[in-house]
């Protein structure tokens, strides 16, 4: 069996494993633990330079309520949802269609189109910041949720198409052919056969894109500067304070901002059922 189960290895390996595993785990989680601990620190700790030591008090309620009192974080979270949800729906729906077309139909420039979708992912998006900003201003989309959504969808579709096309390519093609012989039209094949089988892919991609967009800071600052459309990542800067940086509040806000993607993952987790296609063909 590979890898060899730990219980069957030599005693010194087992001991080493038992010690190293927690160490590695803590190291890995250190940034997260740091933020979590900071978020409950009294502000006096930070003023006194106690960044990494034991917190002198447990100010969970004070800090977290301060986040809501001192900033419009509720509003920013709402903004984040207003940008993220349409983007996820748009990018995933579009890539289901493009992926289906590229995976199922044979046409001359099929591979070329596919490579263009893929190649788009390799363009560092930072170099597009200024042209995109000019474009949004020219189109009257600067400082609008619609603008953010449109550009996110445009930027994410390349990656999503790659993902979906490869997933559909992996489905047994006989399913589609069999439906064709039965006289089912292409739209119905897509809707009744391919989409249900794509559920695991749609779920995985939705979580991924949700996280990408939710965590986006770059486009949020490039394409918007008004508090009306600012998502939570950009809006958090409001907590910086005028004279000193209120790290404990920023940490608390970060934790709050991270909750939706985490919740999204646990919600969608049950859809990650691999092998939904088992039994379609010989199994």
């Amino acid at each position, binding site marked *: 069996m590979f890898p060899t189960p730990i219980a069957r290895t030599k005693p010194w390996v087992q001991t080493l494993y038992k010690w190293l595993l927690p160490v590695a785990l803590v190291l890995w989680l250190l940034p997260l633990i740091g933020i979590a601990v900071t978020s409950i620190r009294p502000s006096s700790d930070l003023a006194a330079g106690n960044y990494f030591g034991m917190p002198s008090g447990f100010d969970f309620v004070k800090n977290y309520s301060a986040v809501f009192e001192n900033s419009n974080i509720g509003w920013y979270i709402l903004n984040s949802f207003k940008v993220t949800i349409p983007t996820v729906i748009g990018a995933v729906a579009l890539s289901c269609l493009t992926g289906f077309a590229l995976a199922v139909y044979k046409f001359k420039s099929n591979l070329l189109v596919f490579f263009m979708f893929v190649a788009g992912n390799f363009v560092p998006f930072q170099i597009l910041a200024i042209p995109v900003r000019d474009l949004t201003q020219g189109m009257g989309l600067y400082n609008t949720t619609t603008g953010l959504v449109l550009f996110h969808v445009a930027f994410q579709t390349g990656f999503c198409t790659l993902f979906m096309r490869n997933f559909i390519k992996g489905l047994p093609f006989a399913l589609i052919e069999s439906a064709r*012989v039965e006289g089912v039209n292409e739209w119905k094949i897509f809707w009744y056969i391919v989409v249900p089988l794509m559920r695991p892919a749609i779920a995985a991609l939705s979580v991924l894109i949700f996280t990408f967009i939710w965590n986006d800071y770059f486009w949020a600052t490039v394409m918007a500067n008004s508090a009306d459309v600012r998502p939570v990542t950009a809006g958090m800067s409001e907590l910086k304070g005028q004279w000193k940086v209120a790290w404990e509040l920023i940490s608390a806000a970060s934790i709050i901002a991270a909750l939706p993607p985490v919740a999204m993952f646990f919600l969608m987790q049950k859809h990650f059922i691999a092998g939904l296609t088992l039994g379609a063909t010989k199994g």
Partner: protein
Amino acid sequence: MAAVTLKNARKSFGDVHIIKGIDLEIKDGEFTVFVGPSGCGKSTLLRMIAGLEEFTSGSLQIGGKEMVDVESADRGVAMVFQSYALYPHMTVRDNIGFGLKMTGHDKADIAARTKTAADMLQLGPMMDRKPSQLSGGQRQRVAIGRSIVRNPKVFLFDEPLSNLDAALRVQMRIEIGKLHSDLKTTMIYVTHDQVEAMTMADKIVVLHGGIIEQVGSPLELYHRPNNLFVAGFIGSPKMNFIPVTVSSVKGKAATVTLPGDHKVTVPLAGDVPAVGSKLTLGVRPEHVELGGKGAGAVKATVRAAEYLGSETMFYGTLADGSDISVKAGGLAKEKSGDTLNLVLPPAACHLFNADGKTIHNGDLTR
């Protein structure tokens, strides 16, 4: 119910010619089997009839109507795939009724047709299960059920049994045969397994390299193969081919010399070969007899023996090193290294010329 006619059907993928001009007539209600080694184009030809591959040129008629440019769905064909192609997210009932539902049949009609198909295939108890909960044979039956409900004019089977184990294959073979006799619909069946072809077909089409080698009933192909390829392909175990030279011709009989200077006089029905010409003598392992006496016997050394109880297979080597296999009775005792004294009955000997064409069939039915 329809006849299928192919005229000069061709299919190329770029420069690769897969189907090189097929003319074929399949009568209404006939069970036709396309058989051939892998890569011979049999599946491609079936997919062309189904409408899943376009014709490069040629004509296809189903029930007298030209079908080359007709959509797959409108050709009146139903196809059963090797992989079954069941929709994994639907129950058996939905799988069977899906095509009808999508093409706008009303619910009562779908339910009635689904029930008929399910009864015919004994799928009743598993109608609400998903394909993943079925065994291989049951999945195959669902796939067949899905094609039955459409009342097609022609059934197309693409190696439907090759994913099943040996016992199930025999059972499904019988079930498909029964289905054919119940429905009396034209069926075209692709397989590489010549036992399936022999047991099920009214008519076998032997394909090789994109052309038809021979068309005929199973026994016709067995007794009267047109060429070396068909002779070698039909029949299991394979026919023995022995290089021979014509040593003399007397009236309607030719005497040929085998390796080891043994002579066999083959009575001829047709043309007489020239003395001295090199031919191939074909004789089936089941027609070779043990117990030749003295100088008249063909000597072969046993390389390997398989004792199957009902029969014994000997794989031997002739004097010049060429192989010969012999199917003997189950009580034969010779073992590896022993010498067999073989008799090649002249009536069972086929002769093929250097081009592989038959010049004489050792047809035992005559």
